[in-house]
C-alpha cells in the first residue's frame, strides 16, 4: 500500500478524515498542516473550530483543540491569546459562523486588531445543517431556504468579508482571500496569516473559497465549475491587506 506524505502535525488515527468526498475542507487543512510544520509551531498551537462542518476537524491535528458555540470561535481564540500571548491561536470557521451568527465578533476583533489567525471556509451555504442560504450564497443560487434561487431583492448580495475587514482593520493586519483551486497560493496566504501572528503584527484573516458537492448536489466536474467559474469571479482571490507586501499579492 502506498501511504501518501502527510503533514507531521496531522493526527493520523483520525485519517481518513470525516468530510464528504470532494469537500474542500480537507484541502484547506492539508495546507494548514504543512504550514504548521514549516513554521514549527505545532507545540504552541491551539486550534479552535466553530460549529459547522469545520467542527469535523476537532481531532484533525495533533494540537490542543477546542470546539465552541456556533459563531463564538473568535472570542474564544481572543480569550486564549490575551491570556497566553506566546501561543498561536487558529480559529477555523464557516461562512455562517463568521459572517452571520458570529459577525459581530469578526467585526469587533478586527477593529481591536486582536492578534489571532482566523480561517473562514466559504462554501456559499450552511453545510452542516443541510445546505441553507448563507450570507455568501450567490444571487440565483438554489439552497434549501432559497429553493427558487437567492433573490437579492429580499436577501441582499453576498457578503464580501475580506473586503470589509480590509476597511476596518488597522496597520499590521493581514487580510486575504484564497481558493482551494490554487493550492500554492492558499498555502502562501495561510503562512503569511500565521507569520503575522508570530511576529505580533495584528489581526490575520484568510477566507478560503471551498467546495461542498453534497449540498450543491454537483458531480466532480460541476463542483469544480461552480468554484472556478461562479465563485471565483464573484469573490476575487488575493491579498487585500498585508504587512509583508505593499499593495498586496493579487
Amino acid at each position: 500500500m502506498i501511504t501518501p506524505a502527510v503533514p507531521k502535525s496531522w493526527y493520523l488515527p483520525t485519517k481518513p478524515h470525516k468530510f464528504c468526498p470532494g469537500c474542500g475542507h480537507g484541502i484547506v487543512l492539508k495546507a494548514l498542516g504543512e504550514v504548521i510544520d514549516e513554521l514549527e509551531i505545532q507545540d504552541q498551537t491551539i486550534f479552535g473550530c466553530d460549529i459547522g462542518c469545520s467542527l469535523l476537524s476537532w481531532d484533525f491535528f495533533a494540537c490542543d483543540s477546542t470546539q465552541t458555540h456556533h459563531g463564538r470561535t473568535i472570542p474564544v481564540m481572543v480569550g486564549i491569546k490575551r491570556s497566553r500571548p506566546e501561543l498561536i491561536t487558529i480559529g477555523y470557521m464557516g461562512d455562517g459562523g463568521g459572517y452571520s451568527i458570529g459577525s459581530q465578533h469578526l467585526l469587533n476583533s478586527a477593529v481591536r486588531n486582536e492578534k489571532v489567525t482566523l480561517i473562514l471556509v466559504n462554501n456559499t451555504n450552511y453545510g452542516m445543517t443541510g445546505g441553507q442560504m448563507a450570507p455568501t450564497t450567490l444571487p440565483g443560487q438554489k439552497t434549501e431556504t432559497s429553493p427558487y434561487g437567492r433573490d437579492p431583492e429580499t436577501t441582499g448580495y453576498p457578503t464580501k468579508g475580506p473586503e470589509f475587514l480590509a476597511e476596518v482593520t488597522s496597520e499590521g493586519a493581514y487580510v486575504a482571500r484564497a481558493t482551494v483551486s490554487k493550492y500554492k497560493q492558499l498555502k502562501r496566504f495561510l503562512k503569511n496569516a500565521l507569520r503575522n501572528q508570530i511576529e505580533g503584527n495584528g489581526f490575520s484573516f484568510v477566507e478560503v473559497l471551498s467546495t461542498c458537492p453534497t449540498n450543491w448536489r454537483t458531480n466532480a466536474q460541476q463542483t469544480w465549475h461552480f468554484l472556478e467559474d461562479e465563485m471565483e469571479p464573484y469573490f476575487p482571490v488575493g491579498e487585500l491587506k498585508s504587512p509583508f507586501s505593499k499593495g498586496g499579492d493579487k
Partner: protein
Amino acid sequence: MKAAAQVIMDTGAHAAALAVKSARVDVVPGYPITPQTAIMEALAAMVENGELHARFIPVEGEHSAMAAAVAASAAGARVFTATSANGLLYMHEVLHMASGGRLPVVMCNVNRGIFAPWTLWADHQDSFAQRDTGWIQYHCSSNQEVFNTILQAFRVAEQINIPIMVNFDGFAISHCLMPLTLPPQEDIDRFLPPFEPEWRLDPAHPSSFSNVTMAAEYATFRQMLADDILAAIPLVKQAAREYQEITGMWDGDTIDTYRLEDAEVVALAVNSMAAELRLSVDILRQQGIKAGLLRPRLVVPFPSEDIIQVLPRNAQVMVLDRNYNYGHPGGILAQELKGALFGRRNDITVKNRVMGIGGIDLPRRLMADEIRAMMEE
C-alpha cells in the same frame, strides 16, 4: 358540501410547517439548527412557491430571529419561528422581551440536549431551562398533537397576549413519519380567526413600546404577567374543547391521561417518551400492576389543580424526567409535581428518575422495568 379531512403520512417537522401554513401566519424569521431546520426549510419553500402568503426572513442567528419575531408581532403580524437547543438558549434574552412586551409569538422548540459537550439528540434541558421566561409551554407526544397544538397555541396566545412555545422531541417526532389528519381549512379558519391585536405599532397613533419604567410600574407589569400566565389554564382547556368540537381530535387539554382511573402506580412524563409509556403501562398491567399514565401537555403554567384532581388515592407517582434539576436530586418535573402536591395530596408518594439524556433510547420495556424497580424502593 363541506370539505373532508385529509389523511397523509408526514414527519413532525412537516406537520408543524403545515399547521403554521394553515394558521395563515404573516411573518417567519428563522435560522437553521438541527433538528428544527426541516420546519424552516418547508416554510421557506411554501413562501417562495406562493402557498403561504408570508414574509420569510433568513436572519443571521436566533437572537435576531426572536428580535424580528417580537418586532413583527408588535407591528400586528401573526408570527411564527422555530428553534432547538442552543438556538433557544441564544434567544433567551429576547424571550423575555416577547413575554414582557405581551406579544403572542408562537414558536416550536424541537427538543435537543444542550452544549457542552455537543449532542444532536433529544432531551428536555433546552425547554425546561426557559421555564422562567414568562412563556407558556406545551409539550407534545405525536405528530398530530404538534399540528393540533400549534393551532391551539396561536388561539390562546392571541387571547391573552402571552407567547407560547410548542415543544416536541428531535428525531423521534421531528423526523419520523406518522399518519396525520389535516382538517379542512375552513374548519381551521373557524377555530382560529385572523389576529386582531388590541394594540400595535402604528405611526398614525404614536406610542412607545417596551421602554424604561419606574419600579412601581415595572412591578405591576411583572405581576400582570404572573397572573395572566395562570389565567391561561381555562383558555387552554377551552381551546382544546373547541378544537375537538370542530375537528373531532383530542390530545388532552392541560393534561392527558391513560388508564389512570384505578391506577396505583402512575407514570408521569412529557413528550415522545410519554407516548411510549402508554405501552409500558400496558406491559405493567399484563404483569398485574395497576399502572396508569399522566402526561402534562402544559408545563408552564404547571397544571397543578388538574393533577391534584385526577390522581387516584394513595397513588405512587413515578416521574421520569428527561432533564436535570441541578442543585437538587433528580429532574424538574418531579420538583414541580412535589410543589403542586405539597399540603394538598399528602396521600401521594413521588419517586423520580432522570432518563434518556442526550437521546438515549427509551423503549417501553426498559421504562416498565424501571418503574417496577422504583416500586421496590
